[in-house]
């Protein structure tokens, strides 16, 4: 028995040794295989490119993969992508596979796709993670490509303002190009038009948040079932604060008035912020804000749709009125009462990058170039196929064909602001026929934040940011919906932020901002 045991042990040991040995030698083999695989595919790529040369085309055929977020995959995606491929095949001898990813799943799936060797050529970037992604080396530098294959992109953006393309630079290099859309934002309130008309509300008198009390009062007194104002995003003033501060992407260390001579302050200590909180608190106490505002998860659109809400305060752009009317299925009226400002976040929120894993970066840039210059291609991306997903009302204005509407259209992504140059797309019926001109003027004339072009790299203060985020999660929404009293809670909030290290974040940001200002001669 004892003897058998020891034999077993010996066997087990030799086997595990063999296993370990096999593992490590396999590892070696895999590496060399990988190397071979690489050279082999290079060889075949060279062959195909030769074949391409023989066949009168100067470009070898290429398959590109384009990844972007969308609310869902439309039914007729295949058909539209076939039509897109016809154009790209003809113009740059490449086909493109479109991979839409749900918004909610975007962060996770994108991170995984970029972590391996999966082919991704063009990818939507920005959405708050631009500087981290560049730091991880996920995107290629575009400066050279933009000079050659991407001339159209550069021209389209520089026509607006060279500052816009500059704003994407990290350490002097471009890693992404913003889509041409609203590259600035003004601020105001969107209200239900039926109620505004019914009570003869004078909208021209609205100049600030404090002018809204009188309007909310009318609604509150006459429409007991309607909440005068609801959250937009996270809270009532979540987005409105940007009318007073350049939040420099995360709101931790901000520039009051978008200038302040590039001296950062803590937004939560700023008097402007306190004043906004007091206003919201006053609304809450007067019953202009729902009692469950801090915890409700119903979107502002569903609230308005259900007839439960009257208004929301948000950032805006030309044409916002029709957009919000579509989203709420009610006629809305938007009052813009704070002027347009362009900050780095406005530009870097939606951009396109060429991924590190791209099989052919120059062809990917060519495709991107088409998205900024080719009207037919842009309209395919934005609206689908003529006659099936839209028909022309006049030369540049389109609408749903007979029998088709938003609920049954096979392609209704409504992502015009994403796919390259929106100003080349058709105008949807109901919007001003002059919308794109208005939008481009809006972009050109917006006040540029003094820190436009500064991108914060948060790597050095990661743990402080995590701690501070926990504190803001605890207080911010309650304060910004008026649920708690700012007199007592705001000082607590500020103290806890300090304990969590917000000063260190601001100091780091200030250091980077000063360095950026010195390098850019601001």
């Amino acid at each position, binding site marked *: 028995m004892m003897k058998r045991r020891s034999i077993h042990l010996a066997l087990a040991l030799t086997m595990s040794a063999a296993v370990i040995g096999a593992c490590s030698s396999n590892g070696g083999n895999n590496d060399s295989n990988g190397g071979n695989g690489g050279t082999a595919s290079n060889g075949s790529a060279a062959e195909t490119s030769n074949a391409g040369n023989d066949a009168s085309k100067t470009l070898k055929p290429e398959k590109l993969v384009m990844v972007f977020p969308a609310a869902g*995959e439309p039914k007729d995606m295949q058909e539209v992508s076939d039509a897109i491929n016809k154009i790209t095949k003809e113009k740059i001898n490449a086909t493109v596979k479109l991979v839409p990813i749900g918004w909610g799943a975007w962060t996770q799936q994108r991170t995984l796709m970029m972590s*391996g060797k999966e082919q991704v050529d063009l990818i939507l970037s920005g959405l708050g993670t631009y500087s981290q992604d560049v730091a991880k080396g996920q995107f290629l530098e575009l400066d050279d490509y933009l000079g050659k294959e991407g001339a159209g992109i550069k021209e389209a953006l520089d026509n607006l303002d060279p500052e816009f393309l500059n704003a994407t630079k990290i350490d002097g290099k471009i890693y992404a190009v913003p889509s041409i859309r609203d590259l600035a934002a003004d601020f105001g309130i969107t209200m239900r038009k039926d109620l505004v008309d019914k009570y003869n509300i004078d909208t021209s008198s609205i100049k600030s948040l404090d002018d809204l009390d009188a309007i909310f009062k009318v609604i509150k007194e006459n429409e007991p079932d309607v909440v005068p104002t609801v959250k937009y995003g996270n809270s009532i003033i979540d987005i409105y604060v940007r009318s007073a501060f350049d939040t420099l992407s995360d709101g931790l260390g901000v520039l009051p008035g978008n200038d302040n001579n590039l001296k950062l302050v803590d937004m939560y200590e700023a008097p402007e912020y306190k004043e906004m909180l007091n206003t919201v608190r006053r609304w809450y106490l007067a019953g202009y804000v729902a009692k469950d505002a801090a915890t409700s998860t119903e979107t502002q659109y569903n609230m308005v749709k259900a007839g439960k809400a009257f208004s929301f305060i948000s950032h805006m752009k030309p044409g916002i009125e029709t957009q919000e009317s579509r989203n709420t299925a009610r006629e809305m009226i938007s009052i813009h009462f704070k002027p347009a400002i362009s900050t780095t976040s406005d530009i870097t*929120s939606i951009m396109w990058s060429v991924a590190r894993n791209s099989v052919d970066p120059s062809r990917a840039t060519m495709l991107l170039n088409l998205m900024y210059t080719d009207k037919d291609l842009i309209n395919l991306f934005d609206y689908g196929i003529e006659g099936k997903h839209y028909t022309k009302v006049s030369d540049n204005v389109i609408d749903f064909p007979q029998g088709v509407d938003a609920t049954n259209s096979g392609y209704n992504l409504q992502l015009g602001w994403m796919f390259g140059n929106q100003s080349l797309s058709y105008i949807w019926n109901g919007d001003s026929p002059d919308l794109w001109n208005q939008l481009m003027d809006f972009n050109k004339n917006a006040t540029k934040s003094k820190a436009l072009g500064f991108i914060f790299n948060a790597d050095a203060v990661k743990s402080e940011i995590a701690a501070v985020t926990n504190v803001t999660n605890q207080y911010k929404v309650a304060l910004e919906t008026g649920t708690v009293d700012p007199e007592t809670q705001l000082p607590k909030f500020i103290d806890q932020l300090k304990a969590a290290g917000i000063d260190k974040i601001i100091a780091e940001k200030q250091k980077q901002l000063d360095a950026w200002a010195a390098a850019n001669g601001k």
Partner: protein
Amino acid sequence: MQSSGRVYQWLLNIVMIGFTLFCLMPIWLLFSSSLTDDMELVRNGYAFFPKDISFSAYHYLWNTSSEIARAYGITVLTTVIGTAAGLSLTAMVAYPLSRIEMPFRNTLAFYVFFTMLFNGGLVPSYLLYTNYFDFKNTLLALIIPGLLMNGFFIILMRTFFATSIPTAIIESAYIDGAREWKIFYRIVLPLSTPVLATVGLFYVILYWNDWFNGLIYLTDSKYYSLQNLLNRILLDLQFLQSSTQAGSQTGDLAARIPLASMRMAMAVIGVVPLLVAYPFFQKYFAKGLTVGAVKG
């Protein structure tokens, strides 16, 4: 003595009833809100007894959404295939491990046990399944990664086989001329219904409720399972609430989020089959679980 015993009994009952209510009430709320009219829900919030019962959410699911029917089909399909494959593989690994004559028994058992404590992590698993196996956007991605075999179930079954099947039966079958394979499926498996039912139910629940594989391995909506679909709606909602970065751009997404009663109705149709199936398993369930637990 007698009366104090009865008081004690009553007290226990009250505590248990209270506890049961805590478990049942959320489900009831889910159910009743799925029967409430959308706009009613936004206006007056959730209620245990809706003022007007409305089947509009179910009508909508039934009529318009082929996406949901499809997702339901995918859920059923992966559950059936996954449970059948998982159960048979688990039994086939667990049975040899339960036999003392098996060479390297302990080493192999440790190998199984090891997977319960450690795994490769998300990114390496993703790379393995997408780069080397090419599972991305296939049905296999919903069946194999992380679900197909589970160390805990193997050990549960092995313990059952080792303790509840007398070696004498196996030996007598061997003397009667049965080979290992025949012993396994004619003698051992029929004697093991409690543990098979238990582990089978575990697999059903795992597969039925899984959304994670769908979240990371699928970009093509044609393979979305019901839970994946529900989870994506929740993620979209979270995204909307957390992200002010994308700005006005997400308005379109916000407008597309299904209304609360729709979400509740989807959850209900996701829950019902398990609720219905559970009592049938229950008979074996406690038995199989305790056998594994006591001796495990």
